[in-house]
């Protein structure tokens, strides 16, 4: 499992360009992931690969096609120094793990990587880097495997309740 390294401010237009937004199937979207930005990604990404970014990963549009395209490519986790708000939530909701790692910059492209969620770290090229825990109310959704699974058996929600 390898690392696909990107820089700061990777926007959702780069992850999946606007002209593919009529597609909703993750496998189909994956064929166009990073098209025009990093064309080899769609061809070479493998199950379990990890995308690594800098700050503000996933800024821009609210399109959920972005996490879906990464999921379709087999990516289960995105590691970044920080995430744009909507992308972070969309990722959690769709079952893609957004992992905040202050030392993400030190990870090199092509590094061999493994994620240990329970241990709270990722291991890149044999080096362990701490990742921050997912905030409380999002944790339940992560554990359920996404918001659909979480909400499926929910009959009602208590308005104005706190987490």
């Amino acid at each position, binding site marked *: 499992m390898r690392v696909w390294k990107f820089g700061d401010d990777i926007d959702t237009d780069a992850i999946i360009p606007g002209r593919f937004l009529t597609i909703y199937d993750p496998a189909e979207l994956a064929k166009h992931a990073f098209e025009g930005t990093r064309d080899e990604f769609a061809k070479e990404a493998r199950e379990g690969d990890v995308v690594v970014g800098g700050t503000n990963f996933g800024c821009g549009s609210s399109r959920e096609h972005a996490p879906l395209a990464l999921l379709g490519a087999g990516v289960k986790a995105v590691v970044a120094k920080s995430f744009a708000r909507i992308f972070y939530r969309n990722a959690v909701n769709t079952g893609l793990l957004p992992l905040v790692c202050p030392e993400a910059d030190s990870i090199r492209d092509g590094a061999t990587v493994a994620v240990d969620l329970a241990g709270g770290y990722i291991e890149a090229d044999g080096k362990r880097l701490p990742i921050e825990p997912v905030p409380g109310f999002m944790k339940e959704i992560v554990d359920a495997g996404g918001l659909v699974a979480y*909400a499926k058996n929910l009959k009602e929600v208590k*308005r104005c309740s706190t987490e």
Partner: protein
Amino acid sequence: MAATIAEKIFSMKCGRSVRAGDVVMAPVDAAMIHDITGPLAVRVFGEMGGERVFDPERIIMLFDHQVPADSIPAAENHVFMRQFAREQEIHNYDLLEGVCHQIVMEKGRAAPGEIIVGTDSHTCTYGAAGAFATGIGSTDMGFVLKFGALYFRVPESILLEVEGKFGRRVGAKDLILSLAGDIGADGATYMALEFTGRAIEKMNMAGRMTCANMAIEMGAKAGIVRPDAATWDYVGARRDIEPFDLAGDADAAYRERRHYDVTDLAPQVAVPHNVDNVVDVTKVAGTKVDQVFIGSCTNGRYEDLFEAAEVMGSADRFADGVRVIVIPASRTEYLKALRAGLIERFVEAGALVEAPCCGPCMGGAFGLLAPGEVSLSTSNRNFRGRQGSTQAQVYLSSPATAAASALYGEITDPREV
């Protein structure tokens, strides 16, 4: 206890004091879905076991990104959404009215103190009406369609106090671009921007919408303009509502207070490929452009078209070799411009005037750029590939700067025209 506007809105909705950092399952006053992100939300609603939406009257549906349908899949999406609207008895504006954010505002579907979500990142536009409005993804929207509520982390707020008087042909778009440059593309992530000060008070609703619209370009969750007489006039003309006071308290716990003065602000341009890559127009004047786009939810209102026409003055042609695409943000704004003779001016000068929709801003419908082409656009994003080829360059500016540049075929300071 002193509170910011965002804190007050969540407190009002929940009938108790709610503060930044609290996570609440807040009720939603309105939910907007459109043709691109709506179909997925509807599907997710079904997968969540949703049968009836929480309240059809609170759902705003319309098509604007790919209209009229530019492909068979787009047409199929429209059919799918129409079907859902019929089944659920949701009023569907369909493709008749224009760009989502303009429609929510002009139909009076947003008001001070409301919590509004939309499956579009620029939903923050309704902060111009004093609402807490934020963009969400389709899965969150599926949840909202089912339950009418969503978990929100109440954000900290940055208070922006904007004083001074704009110079000639400088305005709201120049201000918000300069703020993006100053605060940075992620400088307000997870936070709300609260706009106050004399320059904002004197700004018309069109300008306030331009400002609130681009809060997301600094990562903000919402951009809220403190409601005043202008807000209540605008909202009151569209629905029955009693004005009330909704201001941030002077001693509220703002994360930060920033002061600006617009008096000496020059026209601003965001240069490729980030919205916070902002310079004075003089720094890029002379850059050749292939396409000029005047429109979008940021700058497609009558006031924007008027601003562009004013800069055109008596000029009767745009520069040779420049494609000028003008798209009013809504049917209402189109008609206003038409009746004022602006549309005729643009067409005579050589512009393509399209029916209300997102157009080139969406980067998937039409008006796409070839590799190597340069575009100046009044929209809100210049990301690489946003308007076509990843090898194209997109600059962002005000309608005045766009019109001046269309006249000369190169980026031009509107004050010099």
